[in-house]
């Protein structure tokens, strides 16, 4: 992620971050998004986001 892209995202999200901290935020986001940007979503069509785990599932079923 470039600083220019970071600024574009800040504008779209209506947030302000001090200029002297932008590089740190850029690094934080670059690291966080690296595996996501490396992912070829076409190869993972069967993957559904799993934001719930076993709440409410029958006994012994852990969603494996």
């Amino acid at each position, binding site marked *: 992620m470039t600083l220019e892209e*970071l600024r574009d*995202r*800040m504008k779209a*999200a209506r*947030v*302000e*971050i*001090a200029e002297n*901290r932008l590089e*740190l*935020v850029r*690094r*934080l*986001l670059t*690291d*966080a*998004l*690296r*595996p*996501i940007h*490396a*992912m070829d*979503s076409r190869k*993972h069509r069967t*993957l*559904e*986001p*799993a*934001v*719930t*785990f*076993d*709440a*409410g*599932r029958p*006994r*012994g079923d*852990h*969603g*494996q």
Partner: protein
Amino acid sequence: MASDELSYATIRDIGARLRRRALSPVELTRALLERIERLDPRLHAFVTVTADRALADAKAAEAALGRGDISSPLLGIPVGYKDIYATRGILTTGGSALLADWIPTEDATCVTRLQRAGAVMLGKLITHEFAFGIQFPGHRFAAAKNPWDLERMPGGSSSGSGAALAAGLAFGALGSDTGGSIRGPASFCGITGLKPTYGRCSRAGVLTLSWTLDHTGPMARTVEDCAYLLQALAGHDAADPASSREPVPDYVAPLSRGVRGLRVGVPREYFFEGIDPEVEKGFEQALATLRQLGAALEDVQIPSIQAAGAYTAILLAEAFAYHEHDLREHPERFGEILRERMLAGALITASEYVQAQRLRTQLRADMNAVLRRVDVLATPTSPKTAPTFTTVYDPEYGFPRGNTGPFNMTGLPALALPCGFTAAGLPLSIQITGRPFDEATILRVGHTYEQATSWRTRHPNL
């Protein structure tokens, strides 16, 4: 004044003395309150010391013991609660200026359960700001210090819980763990911390950082003490939408069954990146001990382990979503570093968040597949030892990658316990991870290793 021998006793030992009336809960509580008064001005583990409440709890425990009530192993045991757990009528700050004057009207479920089990509430333990930031100099709440070296961090965000236990200021504590906030302080402070399976312990009444990553759990000085605390905490809670109905087994009785024949998988990829040589050496020695105890060790591969880095995207996006209103309306009430981290969550797109959750699904499937072949996984808890405050206060200090986040992604139970010390005397830690809701096995592995070593008997020179 509490002697070190008394202050560093285990819940098991103290409980036995209380039940045979060789020690009074009131006498014990007074001794700990005196120790807190003497040591905590240097450690800053406590935000609030609830001395009157502690003595009232202790007197109630004494009365119960007098009636012959010996059913709870936690009766009369002094504990502390991380200050993101709501406590009725008691200041609950979240380590934040935003909540500096908040007095909840209800207890968090975990607090209720420990109090019902007879625990004595010593007070509230400092947390990193909203369990995510760091208390920089000038913050309203001072940062807790590491009892092993006051120039170093105790880890976080359950910083006060780790520091208090290492300093012998409490016998147990509650922590919370979104990416390692129980296990990190356990690692840096030379104590034991358990992040149970997602849904095993209630989050109701606990300040949210990231809904799908947040876990609550116990911290103590031994594995067995964590088992006693978990026994009281675990179980369904209708007030927590993610709470599981999985039955709660006996966590204490199986501890002594040993590890002979158990299969321990060691994932080398990811967990050894950037590791300190002393951390690696301590970990390998711990593996050798497990092998001597009869465990079968094998290296294992988790194919999608590098996807674990997507954990940060989920954390940032959910933290921003939770705090968005206050971040936009009262940004000045957040510490600068915390504010920047949370605002970074606003910059993650909806698609990126969903893709991160899809990677999480893959990681869960891969870890579960490995855990069908082995009983537990073992890794170093942290690739580094406790950093100095000078290091983390450096404006260039980033968001460190750890070995704990992958198990928040997958929701699997993970235990951190001491496995040695560096030449400079800093604690080392091993992390044992197990199958969903199989806390009993990781506690058994941890207890067996712990009983074969003497790390738990070392204490900081205060």
